[in-house]
């Protein structure tokens, strides 16, 4: 099935959780729930701040080592966004349930995969941020994330935003970057074979996707123009409009 061209999201889809979101983009659909601040177990209790617990659940099969890795990555990033010091000794629990991932019709993939799953990080992070906003958990800033692959087309290498599984498979390098709403680099994960220069170009593309509406500080526009690969969506604008809808709905009575 064709993957969604534009990101879509619904907030507060789970009536029982404090906050929740369903996010789908580029073939990924993730539902996230947030509960907290709630009572933390003794082992997770921290005297000065809330413990952020992230659980990633694959659509099929039991979570394995790579889900743990994703959890570690997300946890360290989200802890930066949430004002954890507001809730000492408590727990903020984020569960991210993958509903579907883009399927590669050209291979029969195994259920349990051990390798890092780069492509899914943006979807997970985006869902988590939306769910946190829906749960009105106090945050320092929001964040947006993008994935860019460097694909070599007959010699010349080009940047592809939101690559398909096949493109990822054949890509020279794959990069996931996330920026806070203050334009700081929150997360950077790269894999493959590339140079500092290539990473620099990737950075520009990712930054544009993530921070466009917020900061169009002339992020090397000309480079953008002569790049034929699709420019990818404007994540920050997407985040804003999604929340706009929610807030308007919440405050319908005003």
């Amino acid at each position, binding site marked *: 099935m064709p993957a969604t061209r534009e990101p879509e999201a619904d907030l507060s889809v789970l009536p029982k959780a404090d906050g929740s979101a369903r996010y789908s983009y580029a073939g990924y659909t993730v539902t996230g729930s947030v509960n907290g601040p709630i009572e933390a177990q003794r082992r997770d209790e921290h005297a000065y701040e809330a413990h952020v617990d992230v659980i990633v659940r694959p659509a099929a099969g039991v979570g394995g080592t790579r889900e743990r890795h994703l959890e570690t990555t997300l946890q360290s990033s989200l802890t*930066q966004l949430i004002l954890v010091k507001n809730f000492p000794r408590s727990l903020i629990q984020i569960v991210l349930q993958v509903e579907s991932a883009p399927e590669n019709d050209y291979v029969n993939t195994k259920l349990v995969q051990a390798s890092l799953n780069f492509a899914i990080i943006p979807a997970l992070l985006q869902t988590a941020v939306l769910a946190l906003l829906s749960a009105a958990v106090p945050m320092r800033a929001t964040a947006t994330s993008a994935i860019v692959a460097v694909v070599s087309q007959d010699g010349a290498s080009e940047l592809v935003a939101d690559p398909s599984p096949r493109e990822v498979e054949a890509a020279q390098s794959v990069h996931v970057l996330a920026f806070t709403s203050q334009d700081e680099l929150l997360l950077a994960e*790269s894999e493959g074979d590339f140079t500092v220069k290539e990473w620099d170009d990737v950075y520009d593309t990712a930054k544009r996707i993530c921070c466009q509406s917020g900061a169009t500080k002339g992020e090397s526009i000309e480079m953008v123009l002569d790049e034929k690969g699709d420019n990818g969506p404007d994540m920050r604008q997407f985040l804003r409009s999604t929340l706009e809808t929610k807030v308007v709905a919440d405050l319908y009575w005003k």
Partner: protein
Amino acid sequence: MAQPTLTFPRPVFAKLSPHPFLLRSLCPQSESDPAGRTNGRAPREARSINIHTSSLSHAHGSAVIRTGDTTVICGVRAEVLPVASIPQFRPRAAFEEETETSKRAELKNYDLLVPNIELATGCAPQFLPGVPPTALAQTLSTRVYSLLHGSGMVDVEDLRIWKRQKKEGEMEVDEDGEEEREEQELVGYWVLYVDLLFVSFDGNPFDAAWTAVVAALKDTKLPVARWDTEREAVVCSRESRPLKVRGLPVACSAAVFLEKEYGEPGEGRHWILLDPDRLEETLCREVITMVVDCSSGETRIRAIEKQGGTVVGRELLRGFAGVAEQRWKEVSKAMQ
């Protein structure tokens, strides 16, 4: 008469209030006591690394890595996987030509590389046995696995086991003799179990573990294997051949230490501590790892992992590539 001042011996200070302890040490006090890390290193100074290979007699390749107080042992053991016992096995059709991508997929889909990291050896007080692998252990294993595949160090061709039928005439079996006269059929693969055991843990596990993996793979010698038609099985002769290992990716990690322990991000000063030790790791949230390979002459980046903070931005990351190159030189020297 001098004021009695309350002073702790360093270890007590370190235990009671680690953050101020490290902070104080990093801030220049006076000429007499220059700024530096509590472990006596300069911020951008890594621990020297010591590599010792083929010390294990039951493994096909092995390495012991010592860097500071971190000691890790890696053993590579090869076992035979007959194609018959690969459920999803599918011979390559004649028309499909073999690409780098297809080879990597083959290596991955048939699980021919199996790395695992064991921390629960009491290598540090927080790692006691009798518990399932911690999130850290699992994360490390995943990172090693991904880098093993991502870096393409091992060529699946090197792990294939063939059944060869001579057209005519007996001739001595030769592993990579691609004579036209013989037709060959893929009968199995070598599976490489890469097991890592931490004997002593003092921070920066990934760099040490990865170095151990690379060293052990370079040390690996596979028995020469062939298909025995009588026994209907893969048999090996005593002589062995070294595993071909492409490139030399080297991992280089650092942690960001913030002046304010509980302050706003971006507030106050910060230090980038290369090759952090256990104490430093507990005090730092933002970490960065860059894997580079300069063996081809030019510097290629193989992986970047930066998370847990917002200090390291584009400029710092660019700069860090230089640091990683330096580290590569040191490690590749140690590999000799």
